[in-house]
């Protein structure tokens, strides 16, 4: 039991479960799932589909935050990659015979380049991460608009539109295709973290930069890598977002999404100061946020009060993640448990 509660996944999952339970009671039809056009259809499916971009961003953001950094440019990278992908699909830039393939390649490439840019500013020139990524955050939307000449690109009439739409809004085996993308990315990242020393190195340098450097960890290189990953994730998220609406809206695509991504990381129980991290729990954090959003819509919360509801939910979740708060609230209960533990331990040591 205590092993379970200690796991980083525990509290985010509890938060998610509570939200779902709430919906089970108060939102009608929340869990109803039908089959329409050969795919599953329902609120839960929507959540799984719509969470994809945020989940991807949260994965990248987790790694960056683990190093003690932060990447607030992801929203702009989302806009850039969407702009590039849609412009290519629409035939506005370049002329490729397989627009879809090149759209994806160039969009992802743009994310990687953005990541390299951020990484160089942070790791090589040693500018503080917020300001370093603030530069791209500001410039990025402008660049995206330069690509689209300031217009919203709509690809409704492009030849590859259905293929492109499939990426963000299509269904595979009855489930949203975007969900598979997230799962695959998550698996790859997890494998990278667990099967190589990447995870260890990140936690190490997030814990103590100097010690890590002296222990032979290439601090700068790793930081660069995390920003590149974050940029790549943002680009992928940008593709999903633009694909889902069949167009690139440089002004609004990914606006303020960095806040949600950071929030997802925090709800996942990760410290924003770096060090220990769990990518999986950040994804759960993203799910919590998306579930909340859908709940708010489904419940018919008046738009003016959405912010209030969000604030209250966030604070409740984070307070319950805090040991001190739980102790203060359930002090008595915990006290008994603790002293029981203590006795058990003493007994164990005596025997």
């Amino acid at each position, binding site marked *: 039991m205590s092993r379970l509660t200690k796991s980083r996944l525990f509290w985010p999952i509890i938060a998610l479960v509570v939200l779902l339970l709430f919906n089970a009671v108060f939102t009608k039809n929340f869990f109803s799932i039908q089959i329409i056009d050969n795919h599953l259809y329902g609120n839960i499916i929507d959540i799984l589909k719509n969470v994809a971009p945020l989940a991807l961003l949260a994965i990248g953001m987790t790694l960056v935050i683990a190093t003690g950094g932060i990447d607030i440019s992801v929203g702009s990278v989302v806009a850039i990659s969407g702009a590039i992908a849609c412009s290519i699909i629409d035939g506005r830039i370049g002329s490729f015979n397989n627009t879809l393939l090149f759209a994806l390649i160039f969009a992802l490439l743009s994310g990687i380049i953005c990541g390299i840019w951020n990484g160089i500013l942070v790791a090589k020139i040693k500018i503080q991460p917020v300001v370093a990524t603030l530069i791209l955050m500001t410039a990025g939307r402008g660049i995206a608009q330069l690509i689209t000449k300031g217009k919203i690109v709509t690809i409704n009439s492009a030849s590859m539109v259905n293929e492109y739409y499939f990426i963000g809004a299509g269904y595979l085996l009855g489930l949203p295709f975007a969900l598979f993308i997230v799962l695959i990315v998550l698996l790859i990242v997890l494998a990278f973290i667990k*099967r*190589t*020393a*990447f995870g*260890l*190195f990140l*936690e*190490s340098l997030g*814990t*103590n930069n*100097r*010690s*890590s*450097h*002296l*222990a*032979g*960890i*290439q601090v700068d290189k790793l930081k660069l890598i995390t920003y590149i990953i974050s940029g790549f994730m943002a680009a992928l998220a940008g593709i999903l977002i633009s694909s889902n609406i069949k167009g690139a809206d440089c002004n609004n695509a990914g606006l303020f999404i960095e806040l949600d991504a950071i929030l997802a990381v925090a709800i996942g129980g990760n410290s924003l100061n770096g*060090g*220990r991290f769990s990518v999986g729990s950040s994804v759960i954090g993203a799910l919590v946020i998306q579930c909340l959003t859908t709940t708010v819509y489904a419940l018919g919360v008046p738009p003016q009060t959405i912010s209030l509801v969000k604030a209250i939910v966030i604070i409740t979740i984070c307070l319950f993640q805090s040991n001190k708060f739980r102790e203060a609230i359930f002090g008595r209960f915990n006290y008994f448990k603790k002293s029981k533990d*203590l006795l058990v*331990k*003493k007994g164990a*040591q005596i025997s």
Partner: protein
Amino acid sequence: MTAKPLLTMRKIYKVFPGVKALSDVDFTLRSGEIHALLGENGAGKSTLIKVLTGVEKLDSGQIELSGEEIRTKSPKHAQELGISTVYQEVNLCANLSVAENIFIGREPKKNGMIDWKTINSRTKKLLNKLNIDIDVTQTLSHYSVAVQQMVAIARAIDVEAKVLILDEPTSSLDATECEKLFNVMNQLKSEGMGIVFVTHFLDQVYAVSDRITILRNGELVGEFLAAELPKLELISKMIGKGYDVLSETIKNTDNDQDIEKQVYLRADKVLSIGNIKEFTLDVKKSEVLGLAGLLGSGRSETARVIFGADKVSSGTLYIKGEKVNLGKPLDAIKKGIAYCPEDRKTDAILGNLSIRENIIVALQSKEGMFKFIGRKKQEEIADYYIKLLQIKTPNREQLIKNLSGGNQQKVILARWLATHPELLILDEPTRGIDIGTKAEIQQLVVELAHGEMAVIFISSEMDEMLRCCTRMAVFSEKQKLGELEGDEISEQKIMKMIAGGNER
């Protein structure tokens, strides 16, 4: 020495998850005495101090100060009650100036505003009393651990207090610094202060303490008068079994002096701007090369340059005759160099990571990110070194920050041994390590050198240096003065060399 108890602690219990740190410990401090608190690494000395000063919460027990029962809520509270403490690790704010670190929380004021002039001048005086002459307006991070340790001491002794607690204050200090500190301690004692003194240097215990309390495994062994407890008996009480006298010397002076040892690393006219002046140095296989010098003489800097942690501005490094360019520590590690830095807290430990991770991290970076050492293998390595160095911990997954100071040091040592280096650079490796283990580590170092390894050994403890090193390079004022070898090595010779160097 017959004064009535100033501070009494009775039936003190403290349990950490998986560790019984203190159980039924009594401790009594009288005014006007210096009371040594001794025990092996992890015996519970620091924990006893922490529960006394409110850093850790007491599980149960009573504390009385001047006859009144107290329950300290926080270090601040303890200070207000008249308990002034230097904790084991340097606990100051590196971003503040030296002077401010000494006066923060009790700043003198003029017209309601902090009086910086007074702070700086008083700090200057205070540090001069401890033989330190530095720019007190400079931020603390500019200075070495030794200086920082002195600053922490200066802060503690300047406070008006009834009780002064010093948890291993001398671990990075050299003999002269210690001497100064002892003078001050004796003076405070004569003013009626009660002083608790934790150290692993038994000579220092006998030099200043009146009384000794010994802990072992979180339990009280007993309280003794220093004058009535011979050193050997003290040691056996600490470690719980008989103990042989430390052999005077353990270095291999006997064997193959004449056989020319292979030069492993040569630093040829190496200079690092801002760190160390030009020097030339050979490090040979199968020998322990000592770097001798006073505080701030440039020993650590030499080590850092060789390790690639500081930039080589001019000159060349050769490893096994081959010219190398060490741009970063990883380059050095790949070449088989290991460096155990002197500032454990900021340069070595990865506080939030486990012992296992702390041990394998250097090996892993040597192997490269993609040659992942499997979990099983990691555990094997960790367990091996935990056993070899007798690291006291409930398990290998304990976070290193929860270990006692000495045990942290052992983990760092394990980290570097695990890389199987060809050249091992040890900068104050036995800092905070108890007497039993210290001897074992020294033995280990000499044995390693007996094999193929080259070792560079830096220590502020002259005895230790004399015991281990077969050759010594002497430093002063960021400059190498010369070398001593074999029989030439003696404390007087070294001192003379340094004095000569200073005259220039």
